[in-house]
């Protein structure tokens, strides 16, 4: 059992949460880019989440998530003092912070939670970072101060223009590239569709584009093969070969299809559970 020792909403709308979990075995060694798998209770799925931060001394790990599916909704229902049944990690390969001069870090929605430590680490290493953070609207914007402090320039984009500029992150990235912005690397973390279009945007410029994938998986150690993804025509397991890959080599259409495989089943199950229990766990 893993104790929740902190929780806060990350945006005004209260749709994204930060949670601190006591997990000394994970905190001891984890590095940026790695992930954990949690299971809220005996009946829950095993769900991967990227590690947003950690405190080795306190033995805590920070996760940031948006309740979307049933498991993340159950997680969001827990409060400090409550326990998570399982919390295993660190899994996956850590981020490789190469020798860079200029980089663009693109975050979409809750993906900004994971883009933030990447930008922070680069900024601290002396890299000139352009951070582009995209949200649907003002009330969903998160980590604004943190992002500002870990980048040379921060560009916030919203779909409705209620904060920063109106438009997609790819619009801003294209503008910056067309205006002569030359990056040694672009990092994109967010929804699959966003990462796909960031990769397409950078492609004509031949800029290395790193994406962090979060496909459906069970064990996170290479055992189930459920997280397989085609990269440059080869099948890779995101859990052990990734989660970070060269976005220009990823077969995005396959990835997006595989990510949506259980969406219908889950919607049906949610409806069923709500009908029976009003959304609470099993009576």
């Amino acid at each position, binding site marked *: 059992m893993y104790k929740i020792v902190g929780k806060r909403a990350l945006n005004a709308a209260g749709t994204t949460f930060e949670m601190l979990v006591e997990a000394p075995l994970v905190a001891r060694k984890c590095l940026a880019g790695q992930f954990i798998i949690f299971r809220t209770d005996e009946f829950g799925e095993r769900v991967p989440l990227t590690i947003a931060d950690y405190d080795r001394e306190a033995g805590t790990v920070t996760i940031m998530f948006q309740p979307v599916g049933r498991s993340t909704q159950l997680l969001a229902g827990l409060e400090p003092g409550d326990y998570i049944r399982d919390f295993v990690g660190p899994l996956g390969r850590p981020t490789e912070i190469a020798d860079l001069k200029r980089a663009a870090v693109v975050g979409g929605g809750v993906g900004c939670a994971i883009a933030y430590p990447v930008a922070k680490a680069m900024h601290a290493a002396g890299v000139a970072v352009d951070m582009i953070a995209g949200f649907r609207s003002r009330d969903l914007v998160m980590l604004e101060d943190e992002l500002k402090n870990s980048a040379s320039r921060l560009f916030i984009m919203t779909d409705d223009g209620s904060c920063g500029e109106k438009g997609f992150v790819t619009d801003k990235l294209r503008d910056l590239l067309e205006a002569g912005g030359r990056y040694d690397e672009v990092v994109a973390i967010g929804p699959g569709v966003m990462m796909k279009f960031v990769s397409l945007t950078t492609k004509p410029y031949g800029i290395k584009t790193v994406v962090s994938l979060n496909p459906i998986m069970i064990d996170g*150690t290479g055992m189930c093969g459920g997280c397989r993804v085609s990269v440059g025509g080869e099948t890779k397991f995101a859990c052990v070969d990734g989660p970070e890959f060269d976005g220009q080599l990823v077969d995005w259409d396959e990835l997006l299809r595989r990510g949506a495989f259980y969406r219908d089943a889950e919607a049906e199950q949610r409806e069923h559970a709500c009908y029976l229990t009003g959304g609470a766990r099993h009576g």
Partner: protein
Amino acid sequence: MADMSLKKTAMPEQAPALRNKNFSEVSLGYTAEMAVSEAKRCLGCRHKPCVSGCPVNVRIPEFIQKIAEGAFEEAYALIASTNSLPAVCGRVCPQESQCEGKCVRGIKGEPVAVGRLERFAADFHRENAAAEEKPEKRGTNGRRVAVVGSGPAGLSCAGELARLGCALTVFEAFHEPGGVLVYGIPEFRLPKAIVRAEIAELEKMGVTIVTNAVVGRALSVDELFDEGFEAVFIGSGAGLPQFLGIPGENLLGVYSANEYLTRINLMKAYLPEYDTPLKRAKRVAVVGGGNVAMDAARCAKRMGAETVYIVYRRGMAELPARQEEVHHAEEEGIVFKLLNNPAAVLGDEDGAVRGLECRAMALGEPDESGRRRPVEIAGSSFVLDVDAVIIAIGTSPNPLLTSATKGLDTNRRGCIIADENGATSRAGVFAGGDAVTGAATVILAMGAGKTAAQSIDAYIGHKK
């Protein structure tokens, strides 16, 4: 005088048409009367050929004699003195090629049903005596040993070392211990309550199990030594699924057997109170002919598939699965499409499986495995109309741990190189089971775990 009937006492089973719709155990076990009657078939041979066929040297004629006398608890104690998981072995060991394969009674007629009797004694103990037993924590000798992986090899090694007085910690990556016993072998062949009870017996002996601990990521072998463990046993299994490498393997509805079985067995997709999703396929092709393929096919049937095929490139005689498993699968309505090799998985416009393209094969000359090599028949391509494909063509050792451990030699298949005593290229590091041999059986892994335990005991004894 022994009972000279040529046939084994029959094992009661759930009827096929009933059991292929539920996950309850297929074989129901002997009653006390059946067990005594079967035990009386044993000749009590003085040279004990059966014992030589057992990787953990269960004292077979002795325990069977006890059953014949009605001393069931004593029979259990005899089994448990050399076997850490009797109720498991009584169910999943391939007895026909081990103890029963050596039984003198098998020369003319059927051998003594050693497996069924072992299961009976273990079940009797669990249902009658286990609850009353005082925890028999052994006095430890202060020597700490770490075991990586809580499957058959790891548990057997831990049990043996605990018996020898060592303090054991078993590290498991999953949230539940048992390895393949909980994620792979289905409930209807090996109820998970039985695995839990066997593990509880080990815990009573003082074995500590740490779940959610991935050695190779969260912990390294070197760190285990730093933390004061004097020896490390690696029983991390063969967990890496192999795929066919044919077009369409990433389509929606293609599962590795590992994923499919884990969703059902460990994650309980068949129970409505669990959140685990699984595609409810109508027509399923399972590719492969081993025990895992049979398990996957029988699970698919129970999950509601109307038609389930086993697609295997060789013939009936070459199926690597146990005969009993093949027989049970056939009874349950699994359709065997033998001498067929998959060439491509076909998808619809949404990227979901709509068929499996196969080619008919003929058997040619024997290959290096001694089995006749399948050769494609030209122009024999056809499409099996299925909406899910499960790939059960084998697994190989997971490189996660070996790649993170310096000085631990592996062969070109990724298997850890260990000698017959379980010693690896690194001092103090021992290994056994599928991590060394590649995918094999539960009992071979248990035998390797036990052998390594004795080597570890000798190793830390010498260090003194």
